[in-house]
């Protein structure tokens, strides 16, 4: 599904040049659940942003479902992204001013999906994360775990092929963290490709494959016997 070939990412400020990714190559197959691990600053999030088409690499090739997309314009990337990729963040990134329902509906709004169909899809997504009873609440009225479940609902609402999760349990206690991991595993079992960045060995143990990064380079890959939800 995704073919990463010798990708680099260099950040430049006036004085310093930092290499975040140094010629990384990676193959992600459809239906896989991959965990990316490594210490802070090793380039995990940068990799995730590039995989999620939020950012362009400085060099190398990126094939997304048979298309070379590393030189795509922002507009082209946005087009591809909104139909194919869902995101889950450590800090949830819900919009405080919108209700749970509206937060989940946001991707559908930008895909131009009609109101009636939208409602059906949002209800279905909220049902999947068991949050339909909170659809009229605002994010700040929910616990962290509930917020992350809403974020998950938003990520899956348009049935994307790929979900990218950046430390999805980082802001949650262990009980809520486990809930969210079980949810992600379930999605994966239903066919969604999942790439997750994490610090946590326990979270990583849910994945089928663990990619280890250090200083912007892949330093190891483990095939994992995943935990079953």
């Amino acid at each position, binding site marked *: 599904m995704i073919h990463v070939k010798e990708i680099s990412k260099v950040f430049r400020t006036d004085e310093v040049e930092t290499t975040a990714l140094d010629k990384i190559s990676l193959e992600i197959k459809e239906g896989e659940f991959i965990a990316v691990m490594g210490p802070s600053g090793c380039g995990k999030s940068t990799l995730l*942003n590039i995989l*999620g088409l939020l*950012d362009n690499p400085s060099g190398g090739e990126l094939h997304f479902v048979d298309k070379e997309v590393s030189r795509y314009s922002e507009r082209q990337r*946005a087009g591809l*992204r909104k139909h194919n990729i869902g*995101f889950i963040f450590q800090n949830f990134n819900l919009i*405080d001013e919108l209700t749970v329902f509206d937060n989940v509906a946001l*991707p559908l709004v*930008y*895909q131009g999906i009609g109101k009636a169909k939208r409602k059906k899809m949002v209800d279905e997504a909220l049902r999947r994360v068991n949050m339909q009873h909170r659809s009229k609440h605002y994010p700040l009225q929910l616990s962290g775990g509930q917020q992350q479940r809403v974020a998950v609902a938003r990520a899956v609402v348009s049935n994307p092929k790929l979900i990218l999760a950046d430390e999805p349990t980082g802001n949650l206690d262990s009980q809520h963290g486990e809930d969210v991991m079980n949810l992600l595993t379930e999605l994966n079992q239903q066919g969604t490709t999942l790439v997750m960045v994490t610090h946590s060995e326990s979270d990583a143990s849910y994945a089928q494959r663990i990619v280890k990064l250090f200083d912007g380079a892949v330093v190891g890959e483990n095939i994992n016997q995943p935990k079953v939800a």
Partner: protein
Amino acid sequence: MFKNFIKTAIRNITSSKFYSLLNILGLSIGLIAFVFIFIYIRDELSYDKHHAKHERIHRLESQFTISNKADQWAIVPIPMAPALQLEYPEVESYVRFQNTGNTLYRHGEKEYYEEDFYYTDSTVFQVFTHHMLMGNPDKALTEPNAIVLTQSTAKKYFGGENPMGNIITNADNRQYKVTGVIEDLPGNTHLKYDGLISAMTLAAEHGEEEFNSMEPVRFWNIGVYSYVLLKENAGMQSIHDKFQGFYDKYMKSIGDQINASFTLMSSPLADTHFSGNLSSDRPTGNKTYVYIFSAVALFILLLAAINYMNMATARSLKRSKEVGIRKVSGAYRGQLIGQFLSESVILTVISFIIALGVVYLLMPDFNNLSGKEIPEAILTNPVLLIQLFLIAVIIGLVAGSYPAFYLSSFNPAKVLKGTTSGGRAGGRLRRVLVVFQFWVATMMVIGTLIVSNQLDYLQSKDLGFDKKNQVVLELQDSAFRAKQATLIDELKQSSYIENATNTTGVPGRTNWTQVVRVEKEGKMIDDLMVMCFVDYNFQDVYDLELAQGRYFDKSMGTDQQEAVIINETAAKMYGWHDEALGKKIHHGFGEDMDGGRILKVIGVVKDYHFKSLHNKMQPLMIALSEYPNYLVTAKVKDGKIPQALDYIETKWNSFGAKRPFDYRILEESLHEMYDGEQKIAVIFRVAAGISLIIALIGLLGLSSFVAEQKTKEIGIRKVVGASVQNVLQLLYKEFALLIVIGLTLAVPLAWWGMGSWLERNFIYHIDIHWLNFLIAGFVALIIGLLAISYHTIKAATGNMVDAIKYE
């Protein structure tokens, strides 16, 4: 602690330069406008208060009622003031002023027209406070032919010479000896004079007995500006209360004969400037405008303060961490409040100093615009400075109060963890404030449009006569005037001049009003008519249209003695309507109702505006003149004014006029009648501009904060698929909604306010058109959207990867 406040405040101000500059800019502009208006109002309210006894001085005014029509005048009959002193012990002294008319005076080679020379009682220097530079105030005006000049007038005639004892001569060769020099009158004086001639001069000319006569008939001639000085603790009211007895004694006998009555009115000296629409008054101030300007000043100041509040609370996101750290480090809430207030006051004081500098530089332009004569030096007046400084500090405190209390209330644990997003409540208030700013700015724009429209209307309305290419001459000396018929013949011979006429009045300056007797239901009854005496060319020169009958005709021998033309209003008022021809008007009769001429109506002229459009149409009679008149109008051919003026000047000089060539272009003097409105229009324009600029600065600052606050939201939206366009729409929509609410609120108030301004001030006015509101709304909307565009576009196109990490 205080030192620390100031130190930290200055550090904060200098560390966020963009916002400090916006704040200082907004506050300075607001304060500049405020200081000007403050000085203006202060000056308006200070009229004549420089006279030490002003609280005891009252101006006498009259109301004559003839045939149930009342006319109010700023002048009273000549013997009124002395008779009041005679009758009422309350009156300690009095002074009368009679204008000498626009007259030429000369000393040696130097000659000037003087409009502001008055015959005056010798008591003037005891009643009013003047600084006498030369001469003895007790004796200066006691002899006939004595004149006291103001310093600059004396300098004009005598230069370096000592004016005392020197002579100036008027056009009729009367000689006046300078017996005193007083300091120039300050600008805030209602009755301004440049020269005072002793009233004894008149007494010597007319005979003392005649001059001092208190015969009833002398009370029925409208006369002179008169002021009484009351004794300590005395009031005018008791004189008004007892006036009936006075009337019976001095005035009743004639009043009964002519079916008229008289009421004495008065104004305290300091109020004469606002005495309203009295006939023959000097230019007065308008209290309505004082109120309007006060409101404008307050609004502008409020807008500037609101800007500050807006930006300060919007910055709370940035400041919340500082508050948390200070609180954790042991700061009390009061200390934080002090901290934030110090910042706002320091910013306001900086802005105030800038504003004072700008006011100083712009003072000449301000004077020009407002018609005032306020010296720049007023800014060194310590009382004024302290007043203004205190107001600036108060503004600083008001502007700083909300942010101070709001920011200092943050819970340190929350803000340090980053879970307070900068206050949703603050966001709501900010929206209200933006709405308020646009409400005010839009009202100002609407006001500007309506005032300008009204002005255009006044200046371009069809007045019912031809105002184009008319040159008006004044024949001042009688010898010149006697030759008017020859002058007119010669003017008509010029190929540049179509026609010319000799009249007592020209449109815009037709004020002569007299009691006449008109035929109504078979009887002759008294009424007041405006009169204009003319020659055979009048109708042609001014292209007047007739509704009935005919114009004067040389071939009709009787026209000179018997014919009169009236206007449609007169025909309507006397119930003649379409049958006015042949009706009688008796005019020019004496006190015993004898004499004069009985005229028959031969024509009715369509109503034309012979007075400014502030006045409603009055009955007018036009008759052939028996004497040479004062005014000559030359109708010049299109585009030939310069050539015609050369020609007229040659004729003027060849006729041996005693004065240098002088003329007016009628159209220009008609425009001058609306100088007041012109000034209001300019002031509205400036105020609207300032309000918009302040609102713009506010939006610029606010949009930057909103964009900053929404960085995360924008990032999230883009991650889930929003395009730049989607995001722009979202941001614009939010501001546009606020602006539109402001506009909507502005419409009804502006409609009502401008509507009543038009109703109250103009007999003839425009109807308020909805287009004005649309244009104003459009202007405000465009300016508002422009202001927010910079930061909004920057935010919408920003990097979403950074945005979503934003916390």
